[in-house]
């Protein structure tokens, strides 16, 4: 199609021409370069993620028009942001993302912003109370905009106010699809769930040129902000997947557990899996020898609805397993300790992961189920230096502020402050124990040497004395003795776990239904 030559054309023809220009994004050459880098364009991304034909674009005509000296339109460089309303599994979402093929997806601003901080797409999600999906692929502000504007923009003029408000009201997913620095990187963090593409996306406060200039460091962008750093080590982004298509599939999956907003309950989806299913293998999955670890993910798989478990952040804070799942079709959040990773001790990363997951589930009225096998917070010089105690206590604080129903199943160990983060002693909170359970302020092994030091040292055979005291104390550690005192509500056969929990999760729906809406957060997190 050529530029319009006739100045008197019906509006519809001009509209179609302008839409055609918008669909070309940054032009054939820029799109080809983008494809060669193994990336999809923003339009292909939206199409790949959302239900077929469901995208109702808003603001396609936005951009910078060029005109000849008679004022006739020659072309339009589209704004580097594409957004609108779409549907995922038949439910409306607000979706948008930078168009990297136009000026590297740099910030753009007309009378009103389309995307980015305070953009229309955020208003759409906030006002319609629908989930927001950010597809991040841009480098944020550019110093060239100062030349164009004639002044520099004060930080926060286009701020994070809406992005912040959204986190308490509707599900927000941020997917880093390319290189995200500055504002887009900041927005990627302001999400309930964030993800990126392994090997083909990076996220950082500033990229290699700025790092070189500031610190003299030569570093490749993948080593600075690829998934091995951002996801596995830092936890800056929650998860990474091998391709953009895999990301889209996982976004659809994540949203299937989420309500549209905090005024609704998460959608129940009945599985073809009887509530009364008893898995025989649960009876002896925990080894008698308490030194032996076992696979907690197998425990989770056997208790909850088949094929319903969606683990989040599996490569970060590996001592804690956080998964969304369904039980009798109801959405639940699972927090389980992983004995295969340092015996399930909670380190700073594990505590951070647990804190975020509790807040997310509390916000969206997703009841929490703790499967506990925790010897305590991680100990040692490294753990102290990482601030394990602070992050661990923050997790305790957040779990005590949460008002969503919680149930605790003590699978084996439940010790000390880390154990406190996994229980709710009040109200609807339910504490169940398997016969293999044991608990206390600290495990007997460590405690005996400290508390009976003099007695042990005075004995003829100190080792035998220590073993004797340990054996005596261990007898008091039977979960049945605590059950006699109603210190736990019940000791159950592991095979009954599914049926027992399902009854309480079903019953909890009534209280959740009358407690819908945003959660008020007070006080200072430690």
């Amino acid at each position, binding site marked *: 199609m050529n530029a319009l030559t006739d100045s008197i054309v019906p509006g519809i023809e001009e509209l179609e021409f302008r839409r055609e220009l918008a669909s070309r994004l940054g032009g054939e050459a820029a799109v080809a370069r983008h494809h060669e880098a193994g990336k999809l364009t923003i339009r292909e991304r939206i199409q790949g993620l959302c239900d077929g034909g469901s995208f109702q674009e808003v603001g396609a005509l936005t951009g910078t028009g060029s005109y000849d000296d008679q004022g006739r339109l020659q072309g339009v460089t589209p704004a580097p942001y594409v957004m609108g309303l779409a549907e995922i599994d038949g439910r409306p979402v607000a979706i948008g993302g930078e168009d990297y093929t136009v000026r590297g997806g740099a910030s753009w601003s007309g009378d009103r912003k389309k995307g980015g901080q305070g953009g229309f797409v955020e208003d759409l999600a906030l006002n319609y109370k629908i989930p927001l999906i950010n597809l991040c692929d841009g480098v944020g502000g550019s110093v060239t905009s100062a030349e164009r504007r004639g002044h520099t923009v004060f930080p926060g003029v286009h701020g994070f106010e809406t992005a912040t408000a959204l986190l308490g009201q509707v599900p927000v997913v941020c997917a880093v699809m390319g290189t995200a620095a500055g504002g887009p990187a900041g927005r990627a963090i302001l999400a309930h769930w964030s993800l990126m593409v392994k090997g083909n996306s990076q996220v950082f406060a500033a990229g290699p040129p700025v790092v070189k200039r500031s610190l003299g460091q030569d570093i490749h962008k993948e080593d600075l902000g690829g998934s091995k750093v951002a996801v596995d080590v830092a936890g800056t982004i929650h998860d990474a997947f091998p391709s953009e298509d895999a990301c889209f599939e996982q976004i659809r999956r994540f949203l299937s557990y989420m309500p549209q907003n905090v005024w609704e309950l998460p959608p129940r989806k009945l599985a073809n899996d009887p509530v009364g299913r008893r898995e025989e293998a649960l009876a002896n999955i925990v080894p008698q020898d308490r*030194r*032996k*670890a*076992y*696979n907690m993910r197998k425990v989770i798989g056997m208790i909850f609805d088949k094929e319903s478990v969606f683990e989040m952040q599996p490569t970060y804070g590996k001592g804690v397993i956080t998964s969304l799942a369904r039980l009798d079709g109801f959405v639940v959040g699972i927090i389980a300790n992983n*004995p295969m*990773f*340092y*015996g399930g001790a909670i380190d700073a990363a594990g505590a951070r992961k647990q804190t975020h997951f509790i807040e997310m589930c509390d916000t969206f009225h997703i009841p929490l189920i703790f499967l506990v096998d925790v010897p305590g917070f991680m100990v040692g010089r490294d753990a102290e230096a990482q601030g394990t105690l602070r992050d661990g206590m923050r997790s305790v604080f957040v779990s005590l502020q949460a008002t969503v129903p919680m149930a605790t199943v003590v699978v084996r160990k439940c010790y000390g402050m880390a154990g406190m983060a996994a229980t709710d002693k009040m109200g609807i909170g339910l504490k169940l124990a398997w016969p293999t359970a044991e608990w206390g302020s600290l495990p007997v092994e460590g405690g005996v040497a400290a508390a009976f030091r003099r007695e042990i040292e005075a004995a003829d055979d100190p080792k035998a004395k220590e073993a004797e005291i340990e054996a005596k104390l261990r007898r008091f550690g039977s979960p049945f003795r605590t059950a006699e005192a109603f210190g736990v509500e019940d000791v159950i056969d592991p095979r009954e776990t599914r049926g027992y929990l399902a009854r309480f999760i079903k019953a909890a729906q009534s209280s959740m239904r009358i407690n819908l809406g945003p959660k008020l957060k007070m006080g200072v997190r430690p």
Partner: protein
Amino acid sequence: MSVDVKSEVVGSVWKVQCEIGQRVSEGDELIVIESMKMEIPVEAEASGVIAAILVQEGQPVEEGQVVVTIDEDK
């Protein structure tokens, strides 16, 4: 395809429970690492045949260290 089986934790090799050429299924325990006074099993990440065992009993291992490789069934 060859699959690397890694130790998730720092520790020392407590037991080697597989042999080269042995057929294993996903989830089988191949190696036991001792860490934090616990015996931590390292499980097969895929079904196939043990191609190499890269550690010996008593040897210290680092987090993420490859301990066994498996020739995965097609």
